[in-house]
């Protein structure tokens, strides 16, 4: 049976409904909120104002910080998961999937209960909660990369006389790099675009995060053009990150990076 190409038409129509709004948004970003024709005014406002430039730097810098901390904290968990026997592994997957599938609002609420009030509304709280939110993604992606390492390879390294530490450093770490890149991209993109976490636990520093600024511009100030421009800048950041990640992956000959799970 050869299904006709027409079968894909409905899905294509639906995806057109996804791309058309992006074009609308991009066009809207060139229209002044004061009215009138096409202009670069919104972008000039963003890149001409130190406040927005700082916000861009804080948003990107925080995403890098969260990605690095998440990677360091997740690697031992992924390693344990990979080395675990079947029984332990089925317990660990439940422990990982519970926070993975818990709604972000619910998780943030849990942290509001857990963190002391003076710590809560500020920059450190954003980092802690973002790391918490990102860890299950990172562990699962690292573990799925490690799953492709054959146990025999470790054994042959041992047989050839390498110490446990050396096997880890020269076999496990290099072979898990696809997971590091994939996890890094997913967590970075997730953090750059996060709205709920900075909005709820960020206190005054929430105003330094682009997704929050974008929401405020559109939903509260009704500056649709300026909000759209912030959206385009965020979008460009995501695309550049994924592109760079894929390039790193190719340069290191570690395959194409899977990018998945940007639920928001």
């Amino acid at each position, binding site marked *: *049976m*050869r*299904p*006709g190409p027409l*079968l*894909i038409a*409905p*899905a294509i129509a*639906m*995806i057109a409904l*996804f*791309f*058309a*709004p992006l074009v*609308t948004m991009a066009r809207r970003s060139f229209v002044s909120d004061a009215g009138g024709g096409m202009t670069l005014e919104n972008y000039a406002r963003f890149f001409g104002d130190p406040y927005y430039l700082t916000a861009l730097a804080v948003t990107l810098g925080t995403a890098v910080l969260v990605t690095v901390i998440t990677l360091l904290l997740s690697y*031992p*968990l992924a*390693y344990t998961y990979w080395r675990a026997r079947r029984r332990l592994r089925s317990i660990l997957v439940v*422990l*990982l*999937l*519970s*926070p993975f*599938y818990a*709604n*972000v*609002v*619910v998780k*943030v*609420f*849990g942290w509001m*209960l*857990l963190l002391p009030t003076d710590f809560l509304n500020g920059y450190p709280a954003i980092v802690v909660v973002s790391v*918490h939110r990102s*860890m299950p*993604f990172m562990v699962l*992606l690292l573990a*799925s990369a490690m799953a*492709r390492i054959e146990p025999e390879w470790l054994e042959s390294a041992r047989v050839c006389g390498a110490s*446990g530490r050396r096997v880890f450093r020269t076999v496990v770490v290099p072979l898990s790099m696809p997971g590091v890149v994939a996890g890094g991209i997913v967590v970075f*993109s997730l953090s*750059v*675009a996060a*709205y*709920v976490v900075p909005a*709820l636990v960020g206190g005054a520093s929430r105003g330094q995060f682009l*997704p929050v600024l*974008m*929401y405020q511009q*559109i939903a509260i100030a009704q500056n649709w053009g300026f909000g*759209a421009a912030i*959206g385009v800048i965020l*979008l460009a950041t*995501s695309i550049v990150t994924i592109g760079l990640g894929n390039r790193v992956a190719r340069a290191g000959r570690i395959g194409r990076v899977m*990018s*998945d*799970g*940007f*639920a*928001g």
Partner: protein
Amino acid sequence: MASPGKWLLAGYNVLAYAFLLAPIALIVVLSFSNSATLAFPPQDLSLRWFRYLAGRDEFLTATIVSLQVAALASIGAVMLGVLAALALVRGRLRGTAVIEGALMSPLILPGIITGIALLQFFTATGLVRSFDRLVLAHLIICMPYAIRSVGACLRGIDPALEDASRTLGANGWRTFRRVLLPLLRPGIVAAFIFSFVTSFDNVVVSMYLIGADTVTLPIRILTYLEWQFDPSIAAISTVFIAVTTVVVFAAEGLTGMSRRPSV
């Protein structure tokens, strides 16, 4: 690795999983509190706050809206996903890679941008009913999961079975219904469940598209967090966690997701 290293690693694992689970566990415990505040540990255990919830219309309405949107969006996503997967995997399309990339793109785009873009687009094109907006938007973000799940399942089915059915005289539709559809069932179940959870869980796309009478459950919780801070939020969060957990682990039982290498 040496033995002390192993113990260190085990100890770290315990701490890290405690960190991952603490906020969720705390919510569940506090939802059974009998007091008026969110103090830990709770003095008495009771179902007081669940009874309170049952009497609050806004939570019931939000739950119903969320379930309706998730059901409609998932059904639509699965139907389109089956068709698209058939064309991508079995049809000899030109430029399959490009088409597949385009179909997967909602996964890559930050939800907050999808939300804003759809809001501006729907407003510009005059689609004003917020329920329709929500269902369409959720269908779009669920479709990649559906295509991927059904496609993965279809790749594992031997095309010779379909050829045999055709050789024995069944037409295309009959082959699909009697041969492919039963074999695709695990993929379809997984697609439906992934889509359902994705939709039920969504905050940042819905945030722009809801109307006064179509507030979804996570957004209702979000707005409550801003002004009401009592165990009722813990109770509704516990209900939320319970629904997601049941769906996810039912899916796990039905399809064995954890045996697959990817998330």
